[in-house]
């Protein structure tokens, strides 16, 4: 509903994507130089000026499918390649991680602190490249400019828009299950202890006043939680202590990233079918959105193309294959069915943009599910 949601959604999901890729690159023992190049290329593409200009234009949020296409493109902005199953898992993890952060966000304005935590970490990834650092800093300043003075009501609308976007997604993530921040049914654990948001008083007090405004009675009541005062407010400046830990990197080499992709409950099956039909009808608008957005993504072509390598989000290749075959139908990120009849010109432009990426090692998918956008465009 808020027209200012997309930049926050994109940057935070992007940040999570980088955390996961960084962890997998190290887990897969990819040489440090190569790994660094991969992350730098992705970050450079993400913070491309033209792309961000498009992103920051006030607009509605599009569907998860459209967004997934953008991240697919982004993940392949380097020499790294991901199979369909790994890309699915990556998107699942990114989505659930940011959903968790939005749900637990103490007050709506703290969405900015979460974003800043991601940006701080991204700057750390590229601290050796001043040009890219500069791009990230520029974006930082843009965020402070656009969001710094928004009233609380507008932030609440942004948060509600994000929660509507994430509704009915209950993928279980093992790192969340282990840390007991997610229940076995996929819902997040909401703590009833800890600090209240900045600006909120600890519940438990009733104060009564007379007509002159003088306090005449004070009564305490048991509210049931164990909340305490917030110690300090996080910093909303370019540099500073954010205080909030949501949005920081929670992965490390010793904590593998696994997801259980559990099928949806029987009740939601009906709803998702209806939604996917509605989403197909959106195809034309979404194509326009994708063309605009990805048109701004510059491809960094190296003079001597380095050999690509495949990153696996799973522990073994067999696991990856198995995941591809057993992914529930409702959770497949089947890309939009393109009725190319009307918007020929747009589609040609999109073909050209997508055609700039040559995917070297992508094996032909034997399963029909999840034909990616590129393959469909090739068939037109």
């Amino acid at each position, binding site marked *: 509903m808020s027209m200012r949601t997309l930049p926050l959604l994109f940057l935070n999901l992007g940040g999570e994507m980088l955390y996961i890729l960084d962890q997998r690159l190290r887990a897969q023992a990819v040489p440090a130089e190569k790994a660094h190049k991969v992350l730098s290329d992705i970050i450079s593409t993400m913070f491309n000026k033209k792309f961000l200009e498009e992103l920051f234009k006030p607009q509605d949020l599009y569907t998860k499918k459209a967004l997934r296409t953008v991240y697919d493109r982004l993940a392949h902005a380097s020499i790294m390649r991901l199979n369909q199953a790994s890309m699915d898992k990556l998107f699942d993890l990114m989505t659930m991680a940011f959903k968790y952060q939005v749900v637990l966000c103490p*007050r709506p304005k703290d969405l900015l602190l979460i974003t800043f935590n991601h940006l701080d970490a991204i700057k750390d990834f590229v601290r050796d490249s001043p040009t890219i650092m500069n791009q990230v800093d520029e974006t930082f300043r843009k965020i402070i400019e656009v969001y710094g003075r928004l009233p609380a009501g507008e932030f609440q609308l942004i948060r509600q828009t994000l929660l509507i976007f994430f509704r009915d997604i209950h993928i279980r993530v093992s790192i969340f299950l282990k840390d007991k921040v997610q229940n076995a049914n996929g819902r997040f654990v909401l703590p009833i202890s800890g600090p209240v948001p900045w600006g909120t008083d600890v519940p438990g007090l009733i104060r009564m006043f007379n007509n002159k405004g003088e306090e005449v009675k004070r009564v305490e009541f048991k509210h049931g939680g164990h909340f305490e005062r917030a110690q300090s407010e996080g910093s909303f400046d370019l540099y500073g202590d954010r205080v909030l830990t949501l949005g920081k990197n929670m992965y490390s080499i010793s904590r593998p990233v696994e997801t259980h992709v559990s099928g949806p409950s029987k009740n939601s099956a009906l709803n998702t079918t209806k939604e996917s039909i509605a989403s197909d009808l959106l195809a034309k608008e979404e194509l326009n959105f994708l063309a605009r957005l990805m048109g701004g993504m510059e491809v960094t072509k190296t003079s001597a193309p380095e050999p690509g390598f495949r990153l696996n989000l799973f522990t073994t290749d067999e696991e990856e294959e198995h995941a591809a075959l057993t992914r529930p139908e409702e959770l497949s990120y089947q890309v939009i069915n393109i009725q190319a009849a009307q918007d020929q010109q747009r589609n040609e432009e999109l073909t050209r943009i997508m055609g700039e990426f040559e995917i070297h090692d992508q094996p032909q998918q034997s399963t029909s599910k999840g034909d990616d956008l590129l393959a469909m465009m090739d068939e037109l």
Partner: protein
Amino acid sequence: MRGLTDLTEAAPASPCCKPRPPCVGGTLARVVWNRRLPPRCPSAVLLRKSTPQARSVSTHRMYRREQPVPLRSCPAALCNNLSVLPLPAPGLTQFALVHGPSVQLLSATPDGLPVSQRQLQAKEGTGLSYPLITQAYWCVLPFRVLLVLTSQRGIQIYESDGSVMVYWHALDSGHAPPAQSLFARGIAASGHYICVGTCSGRVLVFDVPAKGPNIVLSEELDEHQVPVTDIAAEPAQGQDCVADVVTADDSGLLCVWKSGPEFKLLTRISGFETPCPSIQLWQGTIAAGYGDGQIRIFEASSGALHVQINAHGRAICALDLAPEAGKLLSGAEDSFVHIWKLSRNPDSGCIEVEHCYGECVTDTQVYGARFCDPQGSSFAVIGYDLAEILRYSCV
């Protein structure tokens, strides 16, 4: 009834049966008995020791959880996202809640069995063909009940069972500034008027005939400058109050009105730098829930603050009132629901509040909470990521 092990003094409890209007009084120590009892309530006011499962925190009358009503999918994280309409058929209750682009209407028995279901979509217009609904609310007017839906496109008014759309009002997109989202939000009925808020702060007043579709836009109120969040009206009990409508917005500003062919602004109550997502009005008393977890009670005619409650640890998302008992229900993102008793001190005339009951809805951010009857002996709750309507009734 007397077989319970722990019967304590019935001191500050109020009965779940119909009390004598108006409120009981300052000390709240008297218990008013009434011979006509709703079938579920015991004949004595019993205060049982908290059982470990109940997780309630007060010494007042307890509520226990009843069978939940299953939902097809989870509700949207919108404030005031539940409307309840008791149906003539005994025990049947109708619920309405917003999922996003659609509203689900369902009626259920006390055992949680769904009896009927209907889904209503947001009416499409120009622009993004995936408009979201912001609120659904049953407006009880003197001669009819209408279901009002507000969305990113406009206002849809249906017959109470959702079968027929009676009226459609498209929002004027020209009035919204370029980067501003367009939507309607905040619904209330006062007499034969339906008031609906919009994102520009404008409140639209519709004049509704006793029957038929000839609903007319009677007035546009332009006091608020930021999006309207909620509107409340005095429950139709023949009250002789001057102030009978209050509107709230994202800045926390409250405007108090007298309804009529021309609405008259009586008072403005400034905000506290936090939105006021939910508001209730009862016997000249305004109960407002804020984004900082506070509930503030004001005298409607003067705007004077009488009670300030540090009620919740997160933003309040829903308030409801049981008019025959003066009970206030609050639900918030901190996963708690609380019930409060409003009363007037007979000596000072000031409003007083007492905490009656609290319940933790485990791991659920509460976005909708409504009493299911005017005595407040039962209530329903919905939350984000929760695919059911939770129901509680007093024991």
